[in-house]
């Protein structure tokens, strides 16, 4: 086990209550809404903030138990901050060499290592540049190089791919994967994008409001999303309510006919592709039919995502021709049909 | 030159600011006549010198512009023997070169005359006020200046119409007009000199004091506008 943390901490108005563990060579992705406490959590793990109660262990060292506190420079960690924080007075090369120099390594050797890392991240061209001469994505890449160069036993990455363009993203993912494969340590990476999370991480932990609401593989999250946010994250519609005789009454009062035999409190999820839209009230088999208004229409790569407000707020995925034929646009009213069997219902 | 105090052939002399020119020449002459002796001369306002000596300044000879201040050294037991008067000075009335409105002490009483004196706390200010009191003149100084030099500078600049300063200080300044003060109204100020208790080389200090009192000393002091005992 590289990291074992179970602690409470405060940051402004936010109460953090975190329990997580990362095994050797494992990567855990941290997802959650803005302001949920992802950065705050990394800060605690890094030793930039102290905990109130609990314990943080890295390898076999207790680095914080509310009394004994090991400062960041002695934790053997590496952090990539959300804003890159390159040292403005040092050239790119010296920024990358900084961590090694801090560990007492000779300037020549540290600079050679820095050169290697810059090469890996395809930034050799900018070795002599000053940080303020870099573009946003370049700076983030250098920040990553700077951290990786120290070969930390625990990597903490705060949205390392946010500023990276499409191709750079692949490069960075690949570099991180290599890195994580060759070092025995673990990694906690904050991501906003489930794709980034999946590309880098084995497991995903979702933080909301300072607490971890769910932690598991993508399949575990998809099968039984613990919250509306998780459902959104994996692209599903999610409803909570009480089921009785194939009828689910959601907490908001909507009634859905579902193909499930569960009774009592349940969570139902629904894939957006299973939501069908019609200009007029459709006849036929679907058991759930209601009228709704279009809130937004967003183009995705090979489909359109339509957000609907009505008896049941749902997101539908439709083709381009459907958008054209139904004149889908904000405020347009359409009929929604969902087959009862499309709902996946799980008891709570 | 950094550690004169370790060298018995060097002598530290503290002298009042108004003695600066005279003592610079004296020191020079003394060095000429006493081969291998180096005189370290430090000049400042007399009260300042007294403070410095009281605070343990390593000095051999002290030449004061004021008997009262000298008395503080004696009273503190820091003098070796009694101080000896070696020069006298008196006060003079000065005005800017180009200003004829003032011809004598009496003219200071004119309400339009701007008069400048040293502060009563410095000897020069005390003496100047004594002169005015003797003459029965009641004037108010525009400002209480800290030393004679400040007074002279302002008269030179024509900022005031008149001032009363030491005669020796006003001597030979082309921008000033010196108006003598009647002997009856004037005061005579005394410059005492003494060898200090903690002198490194008392006998060399003694020799310097005698040099000041002697022929060369008298000649130099006279050249610098001092009266002699």
């Amino acid at each position, binding site marked *: 086990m590289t990291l074992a943390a179970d602690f409470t901490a405060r940051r402004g108005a936010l109460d953090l209550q975190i329990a997580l563990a990362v095994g050797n060579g494992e990567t855990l992705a941290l997802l959650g809404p803005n302001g949920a406490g992802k950065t705050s959590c990394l800060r605690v793990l890094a030793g*930039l903030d102290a905990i109130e109660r609990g314990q943080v262990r890295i390898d076999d060292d207790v680095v914080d138990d509310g009394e004994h506190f090991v*400062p960041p420079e002695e934790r053997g960690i590496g952090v990539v901050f959300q804003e890159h924080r390159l040292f403005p007075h040092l050239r790119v090369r010296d920024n990358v060499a900084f961590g090694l120099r801090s560990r007492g390594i000779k300037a020549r050797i540290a600079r050679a290592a820095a050169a290697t890392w810059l090469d890996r991240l395809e930034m050799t061209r900018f070795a002599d540049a000053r940080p303020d001469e870099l573009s946003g994505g370049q700076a983030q890449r250098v920040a990553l190089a700077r951290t990786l160069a120290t070969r930390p036993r625990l990597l903490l990455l705060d949205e390392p791919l946010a500023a990276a363009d499409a191709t750079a993203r692949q490069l960075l993912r690949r570099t991180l994967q290599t890195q994580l494969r060759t070092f025995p340590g673990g990694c906690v990476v904050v991501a906003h994008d489930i794709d980034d999370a999946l590309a880098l991480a084995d497991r995903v932990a979702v933080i909301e409001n300072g607490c971890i609401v769910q932690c598991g593989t993508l399949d575990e999250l998809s099968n039984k999303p613990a919250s509306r946010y998780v459902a959104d994250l994996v692209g599903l519609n999610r409803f909570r309510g009480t089921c009785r005789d194939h009828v689910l009454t959601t907490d908001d009062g909507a009634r859905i006919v579902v193909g499930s035999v569960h009774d009592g409190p349940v969570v139902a999820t629904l894939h957006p592709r299973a939501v069908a839209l019609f200009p007029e009230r459709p006849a036929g088999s679907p058991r759930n039919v209601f009228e709704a208004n279009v809130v937004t229409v967003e183009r995705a790569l090979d489909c359109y995502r339509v957000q609907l407000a009505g008896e049941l707020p749902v997101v539908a995925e439709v083709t381009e021709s459907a958008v054209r034929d139904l004149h889908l646009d904000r405020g347009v009213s359409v009929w929604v049909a969902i087959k009862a069997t499309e709902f996946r219902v799980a008891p709570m | 030159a950094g550690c004169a105090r370790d060298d018995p052939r060097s002598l530290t002399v503290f002298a009042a600011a108004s003695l600066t020119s005279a003592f610079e020449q004296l020191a020079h002459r003394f060095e000429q006549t006493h081969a291998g002796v180096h005189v370290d001369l430090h000049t400042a306002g007399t009260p300042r010198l007294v403070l410095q000596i009281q605070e343990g300044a390593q000095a051999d000879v002290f030449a004061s512009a004021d008997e009262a201040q000298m008395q503080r050294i004696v009273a503190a037991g820091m003098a070796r023997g009694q101080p000896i008067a070696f020069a006298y000075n008196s006060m003079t009335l000065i005005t800017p070169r180009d200003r004829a409105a003032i011809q004598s002490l009496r003219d200071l009483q004119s309400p339009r005359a701007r008069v400048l004196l040293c502060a009563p706390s410095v000897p020069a200010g005390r003496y100047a006020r004594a002169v005015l009191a003797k003459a029965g003149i009641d004037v108010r100084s525009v400002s209480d200046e800290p030393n004679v030099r400040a007074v002279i500078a302002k008269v030179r600049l024509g900022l005031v119409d008149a001032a009363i300063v030491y005669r020796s200080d006003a001597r030979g300044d082309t921008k000033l007009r010196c108006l003598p003060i009647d002997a009856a109204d004037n005061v005579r100020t005394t410059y005492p000199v003494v060898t200090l208790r903690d002198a490194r080389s008392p006998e060399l200090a003694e020799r310097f004091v005698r040099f000041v009192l002697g022929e060369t000393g008298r000649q130099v002091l006279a050249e610098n506008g001092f009266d002699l005992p």
Partner: protein
Amino acid sequence: MNRAHSRLPNWLLAPALIAAVLFLLPLLALLTEAPWRDLLPLLTSNETLQALALSVRCSLIAALLCLLLGLPLATWLAHGNGLLHTSVRVLVTLPMVLPPIVGGLALLKAFGGNGLLGGALVDWFGLDIPFTTSAVVLATTYVAMPFFVLTVEGGLRTFDRRYTEAAATLGAGPWRSFCTVTLPLVQPTLRAGLLLAWARALGEFGATITFAGSFAGRTRTLPIAVHHALDTNPPAAVALSLVLLLVSALVLFLLRHRWFPSR
């Protein structure tokens, strides 16, 4: 909470302590000399209070003038390093490197009745500056302003332009951007500069006595009063000096939370 980062390198404390002792010892020496028994009547005497009031008033006005005139000058200086800028910077250091008495003399020659500008001032405006309270203000401003200007220039040079860029894209012209963005963001240096200038002005002696003289109630500031006392009654001088220290202590304690916020 930020335990990790309020840590100072430990052995920085040794030289810091030496420096503190360097400042402490002379104060202690002064304190041992202070006439503790006669202190109260001395400090509440009319002259002392008069001098105190004058000192406080003049130093505050001087600080204000530093702000009003020095801030624009510092801003201009921070925007260049050509020949003109460097020359002006030299000009600004002048009152610092000049012994104050010479500074006072220079002021006399410039603004005195027969001075460069002085004659004109008297003839045209009836302004005869020397020996007035205005002279005190002018002298202390002249001596104190360089400290303000150079400090603030340093601060402005480190100022992060990204914020003025953002202000411009939000529609703020140079003037508005200067007032609402630049100034608030360089506040800590402004404060440091003001503090330096004010303290220097409060303790100013040489230039003041030369340019303004020493006239009780009009130009005799506390440092000048100290000086007078020094010649006749050194313990009283020490006592008066302590008043200066008390004033600065009072100000620093009052400003403590606003000017030196804990981080």
